[in-house]
C-alpha cells in the first residue's frame, strides 16, 4: 500500500461513514434499550429552590454544563402574557436555571425565544427579562432574536422536512437546555418539549402545522437538548397556546427533567390526563428514535 492508495482508502471509508445516516438512527434506540432513561419529577411551592432539588438526582446542572462552555437556555416566552396566565415559562424557573448555569462556570449563558407576539412585550410581560435583569453577570445575555442569525440547515434525518432555517446560537451552543411550559395547544393537543424547538427556527412557522407531529420530530433531529426541564408549575388546560384566562390555568407546582425530551414530554402528558400516544410529536419522535415514550421503560424519580 502506497501513500496514494492509503489516502484513497481513507477518503472512501470516511465518505462511506458520512453517507450512512441510518446508523445514527439506530444508536439512540440501542442506548434506550440498554439503559433506562432517567426522569425526575419535583414538586414544591418554592420555585427558587425547586430547580436545584429537581436536578440533584441527575447530578446537578454541572453534569450538563462544563466550566468554560456556552449555554443556551430556551424558555417559552413567545406570548405577551404575564406569569399567572401560564403561556410562558415561569420567570423564577428560568432565573434559577440561569443561576445554576452561571455557578457551574458557563462562559456564556444565552436566553432567547422567537416569539409569536411583539418581542419586547413578551420579554417584559412574561416577567423573564425583568427577573434576569436582576442578575448582574456579564456572561448572561437575554437577547432579542437577530434575523441575521437564521441559517439554513439540511435535516438529514428528516422524513417530512428536508431543510429549515435554525438559529445559529442554538446550533452552536455547547449545552442546550430546553425549558418549555406544559400547556394546551389546539392543533398539537399539547405543547411541550419537542414543540419548544419552534422558538429557534426561522421561516414561516405556519407551514409546520401541516403534518405537525412528524415535522416537530424532524426539527428535533437537528438540535438535541442536553437537558429538558418542563415547567408544570402552572399548566394551561384550555385556550392554548396563548391562553389568558386564569380559569384555564391549573397550579401543579411540578417540574420534570430528563436528558430525553421525548420521555419528559411523555410524562408531562399524563398531567393533563392524556396518554403519551395521543400526542403526535411524541409518537413521531419516538418512532424516529429520538427518545423513549413508554413510561414503564423510564427510571422515574420523584423528589
Amino acid at each position: 500500500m502506497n501513500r496514494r492508495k492509503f489516502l484513497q482508502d481513507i477518503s472512501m471509508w470516511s465518505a462511506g461513514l458520512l453517507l450512512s445516516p441510518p446508523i445514527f438512527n439506530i444508536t439512540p434506540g440501542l442506548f434506550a434499550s440498554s439503559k433506562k432513561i432517567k426522569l425526575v419529577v419535583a414538586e414544591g411551592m418554592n420555585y427558587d429552590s425547586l430547580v436545584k432539588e429537581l436536578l440533584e438526582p441527575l447530578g446537578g446542572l454541572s453534569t450538563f454544563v462544563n466550566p468554560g462552555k456556552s449555554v443556551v437556555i430556551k424558555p417559552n416566552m413567545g406570548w405577551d402574557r404575564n406569569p399567572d396566565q401560564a403561556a410562558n415559562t415561569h420567570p423564577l424557573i428560568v432565573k434559577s436555571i440561569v443561576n445554576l448555569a452561571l455557578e457551574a462556570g458557563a462562559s456564556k449563558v444565552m436566553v432567547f425565544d422567537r416569539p409569536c407576539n411583539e418581542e419586547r412585550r413578551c420579554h417584559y410581560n412574561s416577567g423573564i427579562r425583568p427577573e434576569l435583569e436582576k442578575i448582574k453577570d456579564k456572561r448572561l445575555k437575554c437577547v432579542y432574536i437577530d434575523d441575521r442569525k437564521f441559517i439554513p440547515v439540511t435535516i438529514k434525518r428528516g422524513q417530512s422536512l428536508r431543510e429549515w432555517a435554525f438559529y445559529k446560537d442554538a446550533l452552536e451552543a455547547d449545552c442546550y437546555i430546553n425549558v418549555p411550559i406544559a400547556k394546551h395547544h389546539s392543533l398539537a393537543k399539547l405543547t411541550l418539549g419537542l414543540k419548544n424547538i419552534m422558538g429557534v427556527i426561522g421561516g414561516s412557522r405556519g407551514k409546520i402545522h401541516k403534518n405537525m407531529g412528524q415535522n416537530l420530530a424532524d426539527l428535533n433531529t437537528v438540535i438535541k437538548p442536553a437537558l429538558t426541564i418542563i415547567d408544570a408549575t402552572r399548566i394551561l388546560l384550555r385556550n392554548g397556546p396563548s391562553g389568558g384566562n386564569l380559569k384555564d390555568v391549573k397550579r401543579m407546582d411540578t417540574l420534570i427533567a430528563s436528558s430525553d425530551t421525548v420521555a419528559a414530554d411523555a410524562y408531562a402528558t399524563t398531567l393533563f390526563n392524556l396518554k403519551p400516544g395521543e400526542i403526535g410529536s411524541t409518537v413521531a419522535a419516538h418512532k424516529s428514535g429520538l427518545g423513549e415514550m413508554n413510561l414503564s421503560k423510564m427510571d422515574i424519580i420523584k423528589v
Partner: protein
Amino acid sequence: MNIKPPYLIKHILRLSCQVICLVVFLILFRLTDYRGTDEIGWAVNVLFRMDPLSALTAMLASKEFIILFIPALILVVLTMIFGRFFCGWICPLGTLLDFFGKYVRCSNKKIVGVRYIKYILLTVIIVGAVFGLQLSGFFDPFSILVRSFAFSIDPVFNYVTCLIFDSIYLHGPESLSNLTEPFYDSLKQTLLPFRQSLFALSFLCFGMLLAIFLLEKITRRFWCRNLCPLGGMLALLSLGAFVRRVPAKTCKDCHDCAEICPMDAFGDDGRLKNEECTLCLECISKCPLKISSFKVGRPKKKISFDLNKRFFIKWSIAGAVIPLVSRVSIAQKIERPFLLRPPGVKNEQEFLAKCVRCGECMKVCIKNALQPAFMESGFEGMFTPHLVPRLGYCEFNCTLCGQVCPSNAIKRLDVKEKQSFMIGLAVFDKDRCLPFAKDESCIVCEEHCPTYDKAIKFKEVRVLNKSKKEIMIKQPYVIDDLCIGCGICENVCPLKGNAAIRVIRQKN
C-alpha cells in the same frame, strides 16, 4: 461674521435654545416607542399639544373642547406678549432650516408678494375646519416634520446603519465583526429604533420636507416667511405684542438690519413688521452702532397690518367651499371594507375631524401595523392611520397609539377597554383556507387568537381527502361576538398573498 460681546451672548443664547429644543425634539421622537411598560411617559406629542393651529382646527372641526390642547393656549398667551419668538427660538423645523438651509441656499433674492400665502392657507384651514374639514395636517409644520421623520428619515437612518453593520457581519472577516458588533449593539440600544419599520407614503412625506428645504434656495426661511400657516397664526397673534425692537425703523444711513434679517421683516419704509419678526436678535448682534435692542413696550394704539378684511373674507369663502367639494366625494358613501381604524376610533367623521395627521400613532405602533392612508379614505383622509394586518397586527395588550395621540382622535383606552374594542371582524375565505380548500391541517389563526375565550374556534370534521381517504380535520370559524378584529389571524395566515381570513371593517 462680526459679533462682539455682549451681543455675542444673546446670539449664543438663542442658538443654544434652538439646539436644546431640537435635541429635546429628537429625544422625544426616539422615546415615542414601547420601553418595557404599558404606559408611555414622554412622547413627541407635546409638540402638537402646544400647536395652536392643530388645536384650533381639531376643536373647530369636531365642535368639541379637547383638553389635551391646553399647552397650545400657553403658547398663544406667550406669543401675544413676546411676539413670534416660537419661530425663531423653538420650532424644530425653523432650527433645521437655520442649520441646514445654508447648504441649499445660493442667493437671498427678494421675493415680493408671496408673503400673504400663509394667511391664505391659514384662513382656508380654519374656515375649512369650521365646516368640518380638517386640512391642517397637510400644512402644519410639525405634522410635515414628524411625518417625514417617522416615515422616511428615521427608517432610512436605521436602514443605512444596519446595512453597514450587517454587511460587515455577513460578509466581512470575523475579526472585524467582533469589533463592530458590540458597537452595533450599543447603537441599537440608544440611537437606533428597535426595528426596521416600513411605511406607505415614505416618499411623499420625505418629499414634502425636502420641498421646504429646497425653497431655501430662493430665500432664507422661505417656508416660515411665506407659507407656514402656523407661522401666519402666530404672526396674527403677535401683532400687538409687547416686546418690540427699538428703534422700530432702520437708521437713515444704515440698512444693515434689513439686509441681514432672516425673515426679511423690514418693510420698504424701513419699519420692522412686528408680526414677521421672530426675535432672532440677529439685527442686534450685528448692529454696527449697537443702538438697537428689544424692549418691553406699551401696547400699540393702532396696529398696522398689510392685509384688510376683504382679503380674509375672500379666502374664507374659499375655505367654506372646499369642505363642500369633499361632501360630494364618493368617500361619503362608499364602504371601505379594509379601512381599519386604530382601536379607540368609533366614529369616522369625528376621527377625520380630530386627526391632525401627525403620524405619531404610526410611529409608536409596535408592530408597524398602522400605516398612513393615501386615498383609501378619500382625499380628506390622507395621512390618517389605518391598520394593515398583513404588515402587522394590533397587539392585544398595547394601548400606545391612544396614549400618544395629541388630539384625542384615537381615544386613550385602558388595557381592559382596548381588549374588547372592536376594530373590525375577521371573516374566512373558505375557498382558500387550507382545512377547507385543501384538507390540510393548519389553524394557525386559532392558535394566535388573543381573546381569552378564543374568537376563532374549530370543529373537527371527517372529510374525504383528495386520495379518497377519510381523515379528521380541524376547520376554524369565527365567533362574531368575541372577535375584536386585531388582525393577528390575517397576519399569521400562512397563505401567500392575501390571507384566507381577513378583517373587515364594520359600519360606524
